[in-house]
């Protein structure tokens, strides 16, 4: 390691991982490689065709930016390190209004700063991908403690009634494929898409091969980056974009506007416009809601989980199998729009829904609203900066089933 500084050694670690990233694409015969979650996210973005990234570094998301800074110039893209997160997301909106697709990555404190501009992006229908690698909050919190505290911020962080598409990654393969899915959704529905990852998912390194990511895998053929393009099946719902720098002189405003792009005070027009923004997302729940059920139809308790907690839930399910406990796992990759049908279908057949989260039950409240007519919803929150262990989930399951037996 010579007499080099720590940072030089860490640089060599980074270089090694980047080298692995290159290998990923060059040697597809290789069964798997060790990749960090954040780098897999950057790879997914690049493979999906993202060519603009503006950001401001923050733990635990910095490696995404680092990888984009390294890779984008090599593929003809643009990378800008901005002065803060507000500038970062605004640069991304500018890119998107110019016919590109802007992407940024941050963590809670930066995500808070971005909220105003996210509302603007929704209003002007600028496609964006925002990756929020969640650390413990509020405020500066603990920089490398995993958390899922930004779930409702991702849904309602910006003011006004607005749609939101929010995905949650639970492993390195997810970071790759859900980033691709986020790009696709942003592009199709012309709205910001937030990808949430717990700190541990962003920072962990795991065996991974893009060839083996299985479900929800997209290829570059699934994307169309032609400026102003709207897929024909959405032509009636998504407003065709006005591209800055084209021959026309478009007007873009955060004010409620009509199809000309100019503000309107007309009650009917503004109501219709806001409904259209909302409906273009909620009418496509089936396409947007990605999920996975383990042990489908065989459980008395269903553990509903996302992010790192879904991994604990799966491990708990395997332990439960050994102990003969009837447990299902509903693993959600899409948190919003709410997978109403999916949750209610499961709620109709199980006695309990258990929701382990690294927050004080933010998503459990959403599930409760949907499911409480059919089942008992129990929130299992933890905010000490450690993960919920499989045993903790299993103990809770045992208690629930035991309580039922004794009644």
């Amino acid at each position: 390691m010579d007499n080099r500084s720590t940072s030089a050694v860490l640089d060599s670690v980074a270089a090694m991982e980047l080298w692995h990233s290159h290998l990923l694409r060059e040697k597809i015969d290789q069964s798997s490689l060790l990749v960090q979650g954040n780098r897999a996210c950057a790879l997914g973005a690049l493979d999906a065709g993202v060519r603009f990234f503006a950001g401001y570094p923050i733990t635990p998301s910095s490696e995404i930016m680092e990888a984009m800074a390294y890779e984008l110039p090599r593929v003809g893209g643009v990378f800008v390190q901005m002065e803060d997160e507000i500038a970062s997301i605004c640069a991304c909106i500018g890119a998107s209004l110019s016919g590109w697709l802007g992407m940024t990555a941050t963590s809670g404190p930066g995500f808070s700063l971005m909220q105003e501009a996210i509302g603007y992006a929704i209003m002007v229908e600028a496609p964006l991908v925002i990756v929020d690698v969640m650390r413990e909050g509020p405020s500066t919190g603990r920089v490398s403690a995993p958390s899922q505290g930004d779930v409702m911020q991702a849904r309602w962080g910006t003011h006004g009634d607005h749609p939101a598409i929010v995905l949650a990654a639970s492993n390195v393969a997810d970071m790759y494929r859900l980033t691709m899915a986020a790009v696709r959704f942003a592009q199709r529905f012309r709205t910001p898409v937030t990808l949430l990852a717990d700190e541990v998912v962003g920072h962990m390194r795991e065996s991974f091969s893009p060839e083996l990511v299985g479900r929800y895998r997209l290829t570059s053929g699934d994307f169309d980056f032609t400026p102003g393009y709207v897929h024909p099946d959405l032509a009636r719902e998504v407003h065709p974009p006005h591209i800055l720098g084209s021959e026309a002189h478009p007007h873009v405003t955060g004010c409620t506007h009509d199809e000309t792009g100019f503000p309107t005070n007309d009650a009917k027009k503004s109501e219709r416009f806001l409904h259209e923004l909302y409906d273009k997302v909620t009418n496509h729940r089936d396409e947007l809601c990605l999920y996975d059920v383990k042990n489908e139809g065989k459980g008395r308790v269903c553990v509903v989980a996302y992010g790192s907690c879904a991994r604990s839930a799966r491990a708990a399910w395997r332990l439960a199998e050994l102990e003969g406990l009837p447990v299902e796992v509903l693993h959600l990759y899409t948190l919003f729009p709410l997978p109403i049908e999916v949750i209610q279908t499961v709620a109709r057949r199980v006695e309990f829904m258990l929701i382990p989260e690294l927050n004080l039950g933010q998503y459990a409240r959403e599930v409760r609203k949907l499911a409480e007519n059919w089942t008992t919803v129990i929130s299992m929150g933890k905010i000490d900066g450690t993960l919920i262990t499989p045993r903790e989930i299993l103990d809770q399951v045992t208690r629930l089933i035991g309580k039922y037996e004794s009644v």
Partner: protein
Amino acid sequence: MNPSANAPQGVRAAGPEETETPRVSARVGLLADRDFVEVRFCGSGGQGLLLMGLILAVAANHDHRCVVQTESYGPEARGGHSRSDVIISDTAIDYPTLDSADLLVALSQEAADGYTRSLRREGILMYDSGKVTNPPSFPGMTIGVPFTRLATEETGRPQTTNVLTLGAVVGITGVVSVESLTKAVMEAVPAGTTEVNARALARGLALDYAEWMVDSC
């Protein structure tokens, strides 16, 4: 630690998306036949612990096994706590962080004191006997090697301690194959240091643990 430590091996069993791949090379050592191993490296910042975890994880990946590596460190460039955990399994790994370690490698007194309780009773404790002058009480197999001194003697550079220690870890436990470890070390070390690191690695691999066994307390 958590009671699931006592769960049968292999409970975190196969995900359907995994494909079987033949192992590339044989592993020999105390933990070589395990289908699920948890390893924790701990010490203070600047000792190269994160790199150790990364190299071991890359090596396990070269062995075509499933691996998850996580880490935790303080904001200091040197000093402060530093920890890197590696989980190696023949099947997909669900729960991503370390539950209880099969092998704990401690390079500082503070780390040895703080983390020995994360080791399972039948696990293996290895520490730098030059740094850990007051070894924690642990009933299982305990191996104290003056890693830093050996590395300095071998290469003249205390910075090669982490590579020498990795060599010792793999020589004794066989958690990864020697072939994969060598490949991973050579990928990781900075240009111009290949030769000294190769020497440190060879010295570590050649360690006879019987010589360094400490009586269990």
